[in-house]
């Protein structure tokens, strides 16, 4: 099955009857890709593939954002056509595949599993880099939760501050990390190089050029995360009713699996949307910096430089702008503005921390997973079915 498609996941263009068949095909392929994505979010290893696939989506979104700012868009062509015309960008003309390699390859294992391998490699590298900045905070929260309960149980009056202090330190680390991670992820995706994640100077420059957008991204993350945490927590309500008491372990396991699969209908698109928005923020920040000379051409990756050249976006632009939004951006460039924006962003990430805390308080997840993995930030692993339920089914089958 060739699932290459130039359609986005869910757009529904109105087409003449003669084009109905290709449109239906595109919808079918989009639905199939969605189904694969939903399914992969149910598994730990599958979530790495989702991360890798989304990295490719981000790269495409960055290019598309630049294309929209270029003169090409006024010629009436589509982004897909532009990519098709530029050999080096051909693969970005359509949404990436989950398994099959580029259509240009007609045979061989790269044709069969090219995307699978790419997704896997990119997923591992991106997840690792994200973990470097976010996992320490999550592990501190996990430990703080453990230490707090240990202290309560053992009445360790002498160590009563260990839990709260560790948690507080974790919050600070998380907030600091989240200033950096979204655009660093986008940087890695855009360059295709895992080391680009650690170009601290460049990424910091981009963040300073996009305070407002970063704040918006933080709000979007907190907003999209709320349902994810809510869905994670909600099953504890179902488990107390007569309904649950009347079911066998196998029925409960099925119900739980189906429930979490359905929650992926929110979680998976939310993950992709967040990454696409981050990619656009990155694209605009890079463009602004390059055109104003604060980022040199030599700081761009070869692919980025080539794309910007082909789109004729490298040339410096005038700084003469008078719109209020530009004035606001200018103010955000001042020290006061940066402090205010930074404070606002920190506050938003703090709100997200409160969500995480409440979710985990109401429904503690196995191994403290709710502390160390936030599905829209790290691995989009969305099935929280308790292991004891799976074990109960196994025991009942063995009997």
């Amino acid at each position: 099955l060739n699932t290459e498609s130039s359609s986005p996941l869910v757009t529904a263009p109105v087409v003449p009857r003669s084009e109905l068949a290709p449109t239906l095909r595109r919808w079918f392929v989009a639905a199939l890709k969605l189904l694969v994505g939903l399914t992969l979010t149910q598994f730990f290893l599958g979530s790495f593939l989702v991360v890798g696939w989304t990295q490719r989506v981000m790269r495409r979104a960055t290019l598309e954002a630049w294309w929209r700012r270029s003169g090409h868009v006024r010629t009436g062509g589509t982004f897909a056509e532009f990519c098709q015309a530029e050999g080096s960008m051909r693969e970005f003309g359509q949404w990436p595949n989950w398994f099959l390699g580029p259509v240009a390859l007609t045979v061989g294992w790269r044709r069969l599993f090219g995307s699978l391998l790419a997704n896997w490699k990119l997923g591992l590298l991106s997840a690792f880099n994200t973990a470097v900045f976010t996992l320490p905070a999550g592990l501190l929260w996990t430990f703080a939760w453990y230490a707090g309960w240990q202290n309560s149980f053992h009445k360790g009056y002498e160590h009563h501050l260990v839990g709260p202090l560790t948690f507080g330190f974790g919050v600070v680390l998380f907030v600091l990390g989240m200033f950096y991670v979204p655009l660093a992820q986008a940087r890695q995706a855009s360059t295709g190089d895992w080391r680009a994640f650690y170009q601290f100077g460049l990424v910091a420059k981009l963040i300073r050029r996009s305070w407002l957008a970063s704040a918006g991204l933080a709000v979007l993350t907190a907003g999209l995360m709320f349902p994810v945490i809510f869905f994670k927590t909600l099953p504890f309500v179902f488990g107390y009713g007569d309904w649950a008491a009347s079911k066998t372990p196998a029925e409960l396991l099925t119900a739980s699996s189906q429930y979490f699969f359905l929650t992926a209908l929110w979680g998976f698109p939310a993950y992709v949307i967040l990454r696409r928005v981050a990619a656009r923020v990155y694209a605009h920040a890079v463009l602004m910096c390059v055109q104003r000379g604060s980022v040199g051409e030599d700081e761009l990756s070869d692919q980025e430089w080539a794309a910007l050249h082909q789109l004729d976006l490298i040339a410096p632009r005038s700084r003469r702008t008078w719109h209020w939004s530009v004035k606001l951006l200018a103010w955000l460039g001042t020290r006061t503005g940066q402090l205010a924006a930074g404070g606002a962003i920190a506050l938003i990430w703090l709100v997200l921390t409160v969500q995480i805390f409440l979710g985990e308080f109401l429904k503690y997840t196995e191994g403290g997973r709710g502390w160390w993995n936030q599905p829209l930030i790290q691995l989009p692993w969305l099935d929280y079915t308790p292991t004891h339920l799976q074990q109960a089914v196994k025991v009942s089958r063995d009997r």
Partner: protein
Amino acid sequence: MNSESSPLDRRTFLRTTALGAVALAGAPRMLARGLGTGLTPPLPEYHGPNVILIRFGGGVRRRESIADPANTWCPYLLKELVPRGVFYPRMEIDQLRDLNTSHGEGTLNLITGKYVKYEDAAKHRADLEKHLLAARFESAVPTIFEYLRGAFNVPDHQAIMINGEDRPDEEYYDFSNHHLFGVRFRSQTLSLRKYKTWLYRNQLGEGKLTADERKAKAKELAKFEANDFRTKPGESPGAALESFWQDWREHYGDNGFVNPRGDQLLTALALRSLKELRPKLMMVSYQDCDYVHWGYLSHYTNGIRLMDEGIRQLVAAVEADPEYRDNTVFVIAPDCGRDDNPFMAVPCQHHFNTRPAHEIFALVFGPGIARGQIVDKLTQQISVAATIGKLMGFTPKFAEAPVLGEVFA
């Protein structure tokens, strides 16, 4: 008829009659209260068995305790004590609507013999500050401690409740609000909070504290006294408890870090009170396994294990004491069970009215009690009060469930 000409006019007649009726109606009540008029007959001395009631709490399911001998976390209870007494594996807290399965409620079910939907005392008392999730319950019917002290000449320090340091709301069960019983027949509570209250009063009186320490202790004391809204601030617990706490202080010192902690503290208090206070009726309200709520399952199972060990120590202490050895009955029952939520990684809450939260058990063993009897029938948690009443020779007349008859068979 001209009422003014009568030597006993109508108004005087009615007033006299009313006063007489009130006096007649009130006489038995005054007698029952024993108002110290010299007319009250002295209460008889108590010669019955001592009873140690152990609240196997806070909140224990059958699954981890009694359901499977191969996987129990209280092997001493299940494998050594159950064969020594009458065991009720199917005791329940009734599935009444709005009845909360929790620690305070379960404790009051055990000691009053009546199911009640309790509310925080601040809902009825204008003088009490409202606290979030507060559970300061006041029973309207007497507790077994009050019945005992109302029926026999048992001093309050021999009717003892031992409470955990994290359960300040459960320190108000010393007496009910019942007009025939109440504070005159109160029991006494031993707890770390009671000790600190006593200690801070003494330390402030001794005048050895620095100004900062004095300020901090006074603040803490004021908080404790405000929480203990049913006792007058500064009220002494009595000579016996003064002496008890003095001994405790001499042994463990002032800093609060030397004494045992958690449920081990409860065991230590119970063991020491057996030696020093010689209680006739004692309740030990274990609690540590409740730390499972949103935490770790191992705290729950460890809590059960600690209780099991505490019971072993108590039984050993009783058996080593000639006065208690053949004259003490143990009654063991959880305050409540725990939920079993299949969708939770730690499925052990107890507030959600599920069946396992209502399912508990009880064990009664001691001299005169049948050995090795397992009663496979539904029984109610509130039967414990009536059963203890029958064991000790008083009638808890407001208890609403029958005695556990097999105990006396």
